[in-house]
């Protein structure tokens, strides 16, 4: 059983996954209370699924980008759980989690997360040769700067308020596509799937290597040269959901 924990932003999410199906998931607007609300939520999904904690042998945590304080909540909890029970621990980028549900859409997908002061975290994802890949470095930039990199129809997901949505429409016209609000959200069920896959292919890294993605927050500059801190390979396939 895998427990997935995501406290990257004011939205928090936890899920329990058995390797095939999500057994329970809770996603809520935690604001800045992630630190106090994470464990009650974990306990609820364990109780609701009648799962003993000893059945949890894997833990996946979202590593960002996001709020540094928020990210540390889930990562510290994940490290504590791994120390306490010997569960395997894996970190997954928060943008990977946001993009993944849209892998079958065939669209270039751009998850957006607010980084404060009109700045957003973003990256592009696209299927190529039946492989769903991250196609850009991590961007920390304003919406116009991000849109300047866009030449084709792009599906936006993530934390997109009405203002952000209308700015994107102004900048890109019909090229800006939007997933329905409910499917734009970050859900730990997807984090669980990605984390499970990662643990199938990779042996346990050192626990201290699972760190938040501490991206410098530029006041204005684009940092297209900035690559993901971890995992390193831009070419790494994130895995496609099975086609039926």
């Amino acid at each position, binding site marked *: 059983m895998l427990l997935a924990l995501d406290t990257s932003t004011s939205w928090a999410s936890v899920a329990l996954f058995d390797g095939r199906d999500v057994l329970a998931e809770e996603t809520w607007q935690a604001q800045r209370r992630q630190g106090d609300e994470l464990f009650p939520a974990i306990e609820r999904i364990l109780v609701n699924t009648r799962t003993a904690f000893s059945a949890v042998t894997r833990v996946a945590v979202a590593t960002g980008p996001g709020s*540094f*304080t928020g990210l540390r*909540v889930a990562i*510290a909890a994940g490290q*504590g*759980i791994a120390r306490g029970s010997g569960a395997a621990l894996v970190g997954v980028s928060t943008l990977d989690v946001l993009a993944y549900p849209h892998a079958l859409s065939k669209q270039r997908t751009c998850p957006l997360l607010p980084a404060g002061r009109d700045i957003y975290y973003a990256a592009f994802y696209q299927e190529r040769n039946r492989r769903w890949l991250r196609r850009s470095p991590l961007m920390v930039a304003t919406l116009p700067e991000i849109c300047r990199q866009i030449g084709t129809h792009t599906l936006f997901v993530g934390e997109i308020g009405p203002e952000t949505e209308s700015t994107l429409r102004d900048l890109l016209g019909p090229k800006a596509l939007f997933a329905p609000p409910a499917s734009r959200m970050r859900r730990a069920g997807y984090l669980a799937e990605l984390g499970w896959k990662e643990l199938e292919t990779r042996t346990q890294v050192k626990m201290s290597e699972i760190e938040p993605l501490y991206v410098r927050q530029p006041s204005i500059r684009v940092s297209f040269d900035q690559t993901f801190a971890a995992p390193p390979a831009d070419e790494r396939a994130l895995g496609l959901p099975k086609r039926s």
Partner: protein
Amino acid sequence: MRILAIETSCDETGVAVVEDGRRIRANVVASQLVHQDTGGIVPEVAAREHLRAIDALTEQALRDAGRGLKEIDAVAATVGPGLIGCLLVGANYARGLALAAGLPFVGVNHLEGHVYANWLYEVAGGEPPADPPPEPQIPAVVLIVSGAHSDLVLMEGHRRFRPLGRTIDDAAGEAFDKVARLLGLGFPGGPLVERAAKDGDPNAFPLPRAVLADRYDFSFSGLKTAVLRRVRELEAKGPVPVADVAASFQKAITEILAEKTARAAAEHAVETVLLGGGVAANLALRAEIAKRIGHPLRVPPPRLCTDNGAMIGAAAFFVLRHRGTEMPVAVRSDMKLA
């Protein structure tokens, strides 16, 4: 009862294993030297360092104690007061560990930790001493002084605290830090001012003591401003006599703290006076308080005065032993003693 305890409220990452609230089986502390460059604590930097260090320190504490998690009865962590981003690292790590290991989690008020540091003793070479030091007698007056707190508290019984007074502006340790910076001594200021003061004349420069009459509250900002003004005057004349200024400042601040502590001890029927917090390691402060009180004075050894995991393990034991009392679980930066 063997408790694994974690402290991350400020800039020290501490993990300890403590038995029955008193015997220290392991006590590892990683001080964050990074802050010496900035001359103060940067909360975001401190939180990052906690996360980087916490798991390895926990592993080391268990190894030092020669105990596996199976031989631990509870996991404790500081939940306040302190820097919120720092508290969240230790508290969530500890809650995760407790849940996964099937152990109870105990949230501890950091200030109670400083109080219960007076209950601790070291276990040398694995064997507890034949005659461990007796427990402090209570009721007691407790003075907790550090870079973050200056609290005078009446301890009426275990986990029964009545706040008498606190600083209305800077913490005592902050005043030491600011004076140290003014004198070019470095950070943290407490031990550096104390060392500089050794060769100085404490009566060289008379400095004002804010008297908050009939109250147990402290104020140090007036003293700090007076030191600043005096240093500026001295600079105009030539090289500043650093040792004399340090000694005069130390005398003033220790007198302020000692006077209120002694008055509190005299006005309340207590058995003992207890000290805690980093500034309690200051020998001039201890001497000044000892001189003014008619009670036994207990002070933890210096490495238990500063923030550490063992004191959280001691406090957690008394939380569990006095179960009727309130136990905080949610992290709060502004938690008070109740």
